[in-house]
């Protein structure tokens, strides 16, 4: 994604190019809000649209044109807009002070789609047994370093990473084949 092309499309009012770029950025912002702030899809969609309107306006006014700044500006503005919109929601009452207080972590499962998960299950089932055992061990022991996995399977750390990437590539190819059917 070339953000300088996005800036250029806004400045030159190239509607076709701008629409294509906006679709990609909107999808990224929606996933960002879904994962990082646990936003519902509709709230995330609204905030992504508000954010893009604001950013396009700023580019038109020539107040924002550095592609790197645009990325951070998009994320912080989207987060700001979402938190503002959520301002009226009440929090539950807590009876006791807990031992520690932490912010909620990222909701990575929000990125998933039920239909695509079913496809992924099928692809995992088609994987060779030794590869399935390997990738299952990798994800069943998330706290283990790659070195521990490498030691468990009697391979080098570099090979452990390579094997994992190779399995993911096979799964991705299978996954894309099913999706494109």
């Amino acid at each position, binding site marked *: *994604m070339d953000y300088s092309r996005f800036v250029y499309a806004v400045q030159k009012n190239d509607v076709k190019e701008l629409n294509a770029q906006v679709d990609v950025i909107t999808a990224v912002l929606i996933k*960002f809000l879904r994962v990082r702030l646990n936003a519902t899809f509709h709230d995330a969609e609204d905030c992504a649209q508000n954010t893009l309107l604001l950013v396009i306006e700023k580019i038109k006014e020539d107040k924002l044109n550095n592609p790197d700044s645009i990325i951070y500006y998009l994320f912080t503005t989207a987060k700001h807009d979402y938190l503002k919109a959520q301002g009226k929601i009440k*929090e539950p009452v807590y009876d006791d*002070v807990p031992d520690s207080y932490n912010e909620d972590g990222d909701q990575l*499962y929000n990125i*998933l*789609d039920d239909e695509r998960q079913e496809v992924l299950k099928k692809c995992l089932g088609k994987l060779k047994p030794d590869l399935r055992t390997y990738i299952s061990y990798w994800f069943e022991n*998330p706290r283990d370093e790659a070195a521990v996995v490498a030691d468990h399977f009697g391979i080098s750390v570099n090979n452990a990473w390579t094997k994992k990437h190779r399995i993911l590539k096979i799964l*991705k190819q299978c996954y894309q084949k099913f999706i494109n059917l």
Partner: protein
Amino acid sequence: MSSTDKDIKKQIDAYVKGQLSEEEILSLWAEFAQNPSLLEDLELEVGLKKIIEEAAAEGQVSNTQKASITSLPVWTWHAAAAAVLILIAFVQLLGEAPRTELEQFVVNTVPADQIETADGIRSKEMILTEADSLLNLGFSALVSENNDQALSLYNEVINKYDVEPYGSKAYLNKGILLYNTSEYDSSITAFENALSRVQDNRMIQEKAYWYLANALINTGQLEEARIAVINAYSLDGVFRKPAFLLYKKLNYDLGNVDLETSQGN
């Protein structure tokens, strides 16, 4: 695969395993924004992790169901009960319950998304004033870590446009910036100035009270912080939960009777 690609794949792996810091997560999301196809890799890894974890959990359930139940002799239960009682007695006599520290409840760094900018553009009729533009430029400067420029822009808003909502927004932003640079005394003055100006804007009021309370704690003014935190809590917004926790902790540390508890008794 290039070494940069390998690094990003390792970062995705660490993200899925919950091993990245906030800064690293933000940097990874910047990579996703640059290359949205990486989000497909993230989705694949998250999806795979979920399927494998669910399968493992189901395996555990079936193992539990198959497990045989062995009856223990009655005396073992009596011995276990006695052991628990002795343990409790030891804890009561010798142990002290672990205490939470006030620092755990205090904000370390105020995130940039708390900065007030011009109101979101929702209508084409809306006109951005120069003060709005200065606030937005201040935000851009702050995001680019150009604190001096951001401070100068907020001071310009205060000097030229000290009317609402600009005055309170500029003072709030100035307070946040000073808080993040550990200039707590100056940030307290800025938050108080924001509060003395704000009109009909609950969000600014709430942020100002909440961060004022945090700044007061950082300067050791706990009683004043307690009053600020009650005000943040009573506004009943996004800081309600942390304000309530901080309020209870301050009451505990100051040796005050917890009003909510005593009312209930």
